[in-house]
């Protein structure tokens, strides 16, 4: 099952990992491969959807050939839903709609459900070959993906509950929906990714499709040169200047960091569910054609 064979990719990750850039690049790559693509910002800010120039709004906007962007927030999704349900009554029932919004907002899980429902709806509408979501940070995302199940449990009857069935089915079908977690090759982010995946699979119907290890770097030294270098670093030439000694210390730090990166990468490969795609992206400098470069790097990693 290839990443791009799915129809809904939900991209999450903790702050500081470059989640939005990765979501934007995945969407750009999808569009580039001639799939009609919708990129949805669902994190309360324009995020990925704002990276193509025009500010996204609640109406899909074409920003590149095949690529549309949309920003949704739970408040807007809620009023849209209420308006839809009230039909022609909507225009006269302002205060009632207001009161309902208030209660639905207070009712646990309902606003999350409508947010998920909005992008799940786009994925099943048939308008798009691919929907990519720049989702909330890990903790919130788990709450959102669990919302259809939670609401179905506490409000088993009613129109909202009726809507939960197809959502759970769509989110839970690994051939349609995949969660992408963006992380870094460092100890804490990787530990948090593994924790996230564990909770994703125990508390939500959605399944992990891929982990993107962002800002990785190639090994500084080939294995064959490591022992030679280690010798230089420990058995140092005499009468080195302070700066030259400091350089050797700094190189040692670089080697240690590279070791940590390979170690956590090994952990990811052994501890993630089998079949999870693990992509490595390099660090990209600012000011370049960022999405273009990340897009190509993702395509390379997936051998597309």
């Amino acid at each position, binding site marked *: 099952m290839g990443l791009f064979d799915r129809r809904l990719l939900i991209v999450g990750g903790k702050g*500081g990992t470059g989640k939005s850039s990765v979501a934007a690049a995945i969407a750009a790559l999808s569009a580039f491969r001639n799939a009609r693509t919708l990129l949805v910002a669902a994190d309360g800010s324009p995020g990925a959807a704002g990276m193509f120039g025009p500010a996204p709004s609640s109406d899909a906007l074409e920003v590149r050939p095949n690529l549309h962007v949309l920003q949704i927030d739970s408040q807007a999704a809620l009023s849209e839903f209420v308006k839809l349900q009230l039909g022609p009554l909507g225009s006269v029932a302002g205060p009632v709609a207001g009161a309902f919004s208030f*209660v639905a907002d207070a009712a646990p899980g309902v606003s999350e459900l409508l947010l998920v429902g909005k992008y799940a709806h786009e994925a099943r509408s048939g308008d798009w070959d691919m929907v990519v979501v720049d989702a909330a940070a890990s903790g919130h995302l788990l709450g959102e993906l669990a919302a259809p199940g939670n609401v179905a449990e506490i409000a088993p009857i009613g*129109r909202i509950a009726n809507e939960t069935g197809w959502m759970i089915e769509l989110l839970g079908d690994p051939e349609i929906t995949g969660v992408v977690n963006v992380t870094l090759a460092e100890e804490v982010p990787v530990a948090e990714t593994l924790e996230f995946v564990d909770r994703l699979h125990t508390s939500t119907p959605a399944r992990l499709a891929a982990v993107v290890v962002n800002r990785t770097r190639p090994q500084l030294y080939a294995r064959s040169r490591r022992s030679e270098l280690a010798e230089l670093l420990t058995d140092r030439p005499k009468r080195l200047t302070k700066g030259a000694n400091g350089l050797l210390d700094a190189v040692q730090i670089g080697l240690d960091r590279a070791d940590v990166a390979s170690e956590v990468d090994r952990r990811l490969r052994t501890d993630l569910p089998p079949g999870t795609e693990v992509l490595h992206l390099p660090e990209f400098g600012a000011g370049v054609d960022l999405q273009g470069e990340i897009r190509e790097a993702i395509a390379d990693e997936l051998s597309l």
Partner: protein
Amino acid sequence: MNARSSSASRLGLGPIAEGRSLLVVAGAGGVGKTTVSAALGMVAADRLDGEVLVLTIDPARRLASALGMEIDGNDAVRVPHPTGGRLSAAMLDPGRAWDALVRQEAPDATTADRIIANPVYRRIADTFVHGNDYAALSWLEEAIASDRYRLIIVDTPPSQNALDFFDAPQRVEEFFSSSLLNWLTGGQSGSIVGAAATRTFGSLADRLLGSQFFSDIVEFFTLMQTVVPGMVERTSAVAADLAGDDAALLAVSAPSVASIERVGALVEELDERGLTLDGVVVNGVEPPEFWDPGVADAAERVTSGERSHFSQSNTALLTPGAEYVLERCGVAAAQAEAIAQLEGFATLTIPRTVHSPSNVTGLAELGEGLW
């Protein structure tokens, strides 16, 4: 103490903790706020007479294990301290904190049981807006009232806005005392217009959410009316303490322009409330090696091959490493520029370590430089 002095000064927890009993640590997610709070706790317990408490909410399991804590439980547990300092840590489980609160404030056990059994309530602690902030405040109230701690360090819950924490009591009060809810729960049923609107509302809610859900909601809000005034009173006092002279406020930031700009925004919001930031901890800066011009110079000599300090073969061997070092020196320079934006604030930088601290010794080492 006002951190805004004429030039940047070095921040130390020592002077800040002098005469303070509360330390609030704020910052966006992913900047290492919980690690910094734990490290501050380690050093404070070493230097202060009296017990220190670190209160944290749902941290990564990794940190809990670094502190030698069980993941489960709201009770403060003693942390094994390398120098015998008296340090306790508590990891808040918001769900259980809410239960405790309801039991304390409910008029009788039956009401408390009914609230806790209500399916709407069962979900609310996790998803209720600012529920975590609120649960933390109520827990804190007890810790302060116990008079047991010389210093309480509060690792604020991750949130879009660091100051939500201070507003939690007010928001809970507004939420439960809203006129809309009064109206929903029959508070204004005397009015004919109100009754008609309630009926329309009720039938709409029935259609959308199901009648069982609607009546659960009504029951929940009705029962909560008996509990909320007491809850709000207790936590408002704590929120006032947190903003008072006994409390210090630290921000934790990553060494990036974006993260430091968020600190700037926080300062403005604090200003509006008449609060001041006591200092900024910039976590994860490149270590001193990458700030040293002598190191950059030596690296440049290696990569250019001109007047290198090393033999020809060693120069060739070191070239990839030196390229890496030059790149990180560039990163360090960018970090220095970002940190310069904090001029006027007491600042402290914590270098990025190869391994993140994974036990009390690591946290103690990290804390050492913070006093």
